[in-house]
């Protein structure tokens, strides 16, 4: 592939065909000239982003949900925090952090970046579960099925996580109540389906992981 030229800046601005993005990122990984150009463009674009107004506050959104939608308090905690917790659990569970290449490389960065950098180098997948209105559920899991982290906002009371493999269903544990409700389990292995069950063991949400 030739050098990116103006595409370096257009890529960073997000106004380039999405199918080109993977191609560009691959080129950037191997071409120092273009990498430097993209990094410079990202610095400028980040400055532009800094001049944007903040998103509506958590408190305002919670209030809006409560008054107009009647949303449950479980929506208060953002998916973002959920993902943070997930990544933290993942790192604690897999101990992939110490001694990894990412850890060594991160010593050159500011300390707040260290954790994110380690996360960036870990390998896991995620799937959004099909849910009824008012409920959002995602499962984050190791590619070998060694652990699963299920995050559910608007979870049913007494919700459990159930997995299916080879036609057999297995309850792997109760969701820990919270905002969002979560469950971290290990030693499950690869499964064909991940379900959330509610009262009476009825399936309320399901998702198909791919590994």
């Amino acid at each position, binding site marked *: 592939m030739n050098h990116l030229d103006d595409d370096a800046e257009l890529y960073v601005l997000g*106004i380039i065909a999405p199918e080109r993005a993977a191609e560009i990122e691959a080129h950037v990984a191997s071409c120092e000239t273009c990498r430097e150009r993209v990094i410079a463009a990202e*610095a400028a674009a980040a400055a*532009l*982003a800094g001049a944007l107004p903040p998103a509506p506050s958590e408190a305002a959104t919670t209030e809006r949900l409560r008054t107009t939608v009647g949303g449950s308090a479980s929506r208060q905690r953002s*998916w973002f925090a959920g993902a943070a*917790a997930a990544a933290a659990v993942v790192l604690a569970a897999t101990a992939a952090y110490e001694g990894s290449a990412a850890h060594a490389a991160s010593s050159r960065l500011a300390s707040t*970046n260290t954790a994110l950098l380690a996360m960036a180098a870990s390998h896991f997948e995620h799937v959004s579960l099909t849910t009824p209105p008012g409920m959002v559920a995602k499962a984050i899991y190791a590619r070998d099925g060694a652990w699963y982290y299920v995050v559910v906002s608007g979870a049913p009371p007494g919700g459990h996580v159930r997995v299916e493999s080879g036609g057999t269903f297995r309850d792997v544990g109760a969701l820990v109540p919270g905002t969002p409700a979560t469950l971290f389990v290990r030693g499950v292995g690869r499964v064909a389906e991940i379900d959330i069950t509610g009262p009476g063991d009825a399936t309320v949400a399901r998702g198909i992981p791919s590994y």
Partner: protein
Amino acid sequence: MAFEGTGFEHAYRAHAARLRSVAYHVLHDRDAAEDAVHGALLRVWSAGTYRAERGPLLPFLIACVRREALDAVRGTARRRVRETSAAAAAEPFVDPTAALDPVEAQRVRRALGVLSPEQRNVIERAYYGERTLAEIAQELAIPIGTVKSRLAAALRRLHGALSEGSAS
């Protein structure tokens, strides 16, 4: 949660507001914005390809989140969003007093002042007005190729101006 108060939680909180504002500006919907941030981060992590050589993490993530958000509003969804925010889009301008980071906003405003009016026009339409290349070409009655080269030159010039600004 046992991990609250740890470095992870701290790292997230340090970046969360910035990433959310980038996504929200594109999507005009808080839940959709959170999904875009979440999606972009998971994409980065699960790819496992980020290395320190790729450059500072936050600017990289900001660009990832913006692409994720723009991907989410393409097609009919994009048009719907655009219609509901037509008033805001008509005047692509950022109010520095309302900025998440007022100091950064002032710095950007000074740097934008270094650009030619033509460069400044396209970069504001593209970044703050959420215009596509074709839309900018139509609005300004110039070829798409010209929009592309002008935008790229504008961002390079902006980077130069910001670097000079921070050096002095």
